[in-house]
């Protein structure tokens, strides 16, 4: 199973090392991890996609919650959250096949962000499975290189991660 976890962490050097160290030490298998700034300059937001079972999910949230720099943590539930990922993909695109690639990118609403005589960079945003599908279709044309940002997520509606009670709130 894949689970997505959102966390607000103190924006300090070393926090990422601490979190990734925790994952390797406890044997948590991570699909992706993205870190970004938030509306509060003191906090960063981490979005983690975990491969595992319910036990691993529970342990990961609880173990992360104990890290002093982790201020808030929650699972981004499948049906209540918006998930997005950005893909940049460089495809070999000789002039004679360029039109076919443009046709595909139209269907997926991707953008051409760079064009050179023999290659093209496409940009696509969406849920990870949309990116997967796009990559599969583009594959036969020859992928030169690609970069995905990893998933980032927000809960729908007014509910915010700030409102979640943390472990510290419960015991102190």
């Amino acid at each position, binding site marked *: 199973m894949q689970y997505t976890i959102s966390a607000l962490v103190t924006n300090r050097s*070393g926090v990422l090392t601490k979190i990734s*160290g925790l994952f390797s030490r406890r044997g948590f298998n991570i699909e992706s991890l993205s870190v970004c700034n938030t509306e509060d300059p003191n906090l960063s937001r981490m979005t983690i996609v975990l491969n595992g079972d319910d*036990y691993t999910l529970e342990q990961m949230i*609880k173990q992360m*919650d*104990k890290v*002093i720099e982790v201020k808030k943590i929650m699972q981004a539930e499948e049906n209540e959250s918006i998930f997005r990922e950005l893909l940049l993909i460089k495809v070999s695109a000789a002039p004679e096949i360029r039109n076919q690639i443009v046709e595909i990118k139209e269907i997926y609403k991707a953008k051409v962000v760079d064009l050179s005589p023999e290659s093209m960079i496409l940009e696509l945003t969406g849920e990870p499975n949309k990116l997967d599908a796009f990559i599969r279709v583009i594959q036969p044309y020859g992928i030169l290189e690609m970069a995905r940002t990893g998933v980032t997520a927000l809960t729908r509606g007014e509910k915010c991660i700030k409102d979640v009670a943390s472990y510290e709130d419960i015991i102190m």
Partner: protein
Amino acid sequence: MKLSGADLLITCLKEQGVDTIFGYPGGAVLDIYDALYRDGTINHVLTAHEQGASHAADGYARKTGKVGVCFATSGPGATNLVTGIATAYMDSIPLVAVTGNVGLNFLGRDSFQEVDICGITMPITKHNFIVKDISELAEAIRDAFFIANSGRKGPVLIDILKNVQTQTIDYEPIEKMTYVPKQISASNVEQIARALNKAERPLIMAGGGIIAAEAEEELLAFAKKMGAPVAMTMMGLGSIPSSDALSLGMIGMHGTHASAKACLTADTIIAVGTRFSDRVALNRDKFAAGRKVIQIDIDAAEINKNVSVDYSLLGDVKVALQELLPLIEVKDRTQWTNGCIERKRDDVVKAPIEAYKILKAASKIFPVDTPVATDVGQHQMWTAQFYPIEFPRQLATSGGLGTMGYGMGAAMGMCYGSGMKKTILVTGDGSFNMNMNELSTMVTHNLPIVILLMNNSVLGMVRQWQKIFYERRFSQTTLQKKTDYVKFAESFGATGLTIASEEDIVPVLKQALAAEGPVLVDCKISPDDNALPMIKPGQTYETQIDTME
């Protein structure tokens, strides 16, 4: 008032009530040691090795409940603390380790005696700080003390760059932050109380959390009202007096028959401040199968981590027990309780080994509240089994990490923490040889520590496993040392004594008790004695063995 970083550190430590520090000076902490010298009010104990300082701070914390403090310089000084920090981390002991580091101009350039001690200690500290600017120093120190001694306790490291020690800043005193555990939601408490009231045959498993939360009175009241016997993990020894009728002694790999039987026949296991480690649960899937398990713990991550539980209560165990007590219905469980108590006769030792005789005699000759530290191995299990621990904070032993070499430092910390009470260290010849350099520290400070060296000339516990699992191939467990421990002790300026036969036990122990300063007692015991009973790793409580044949 303007203070240098070094003076600010000393001032903030005093703000936190620190009166004793264990440490070792060096290049990157010269300013700190200068500030300590000029202040002159804090008792600094100079150990022989930084590892000794870290274990001493740990022993001091275990004895007093206060945060233990140790100092070390950068590089090797800092890495020498690592084992002590890890030991404290595994046993949730509040510790603040202060290290110096090279100045900001030199940081990250592989400078002399530079290591990334924050990186190294990340997985073995509750939290750590690298202070690169003096504006962050006071807050880091205050936070470190709060973090170390609140919630689930643990070690915190503060790495202070050399330039920070000499920068100056205005000092503003702040009152020490105190940790007040939160009340637990009433509905959760009621739910647990209902489950407890349904229990026919309840068994309490008390762990180190009872000691950490100082919940011994609450535990005893709870056990009495429930009519539930108490089995203690090694970390929990002292949570109720071993002489109390309800005490079934230690539970786990080398636990008592009484606790194992109670565990097998109970219908409800109430785990309080314990984490079902593999040395207690052994087989985590089968340990509590078919029984209701209720877990009370301060650490959410411990709930369901090793053993899946039916009910859990998250919070300080003292608060939890206080809130549960009025909701417990008095129920007649005397048949169950008495049955458990009667089974304690299975633990009466029929053929006592020498260590048993020595430890029993010591417990009768020394005052009942004598602080006891151990090292790690067979002697540790024998102490846990045979030495009656009557009080919380009476025993300091490395449970989680199993650190051989822990004892010498820990005994010093216990001794200081108890206000210089006569302290016993039970050690083995393997463990003792790891940090025996600290005997010099004990002599320098004339510490009243009696070291009972269970000298069997082998690494007894490893050898015991080689007997069981490796067809008696004693690979590297026979110590061919020619050390004369009496001469060794005397050359350090300590008293050296020998127990070579049963007749020696009482007079030698009496002599050790009467002697001034540290005493090393070379107790010559058989290499073939075993720590029994035993349950093999991964096995269930039905398979407890009493003999190695």
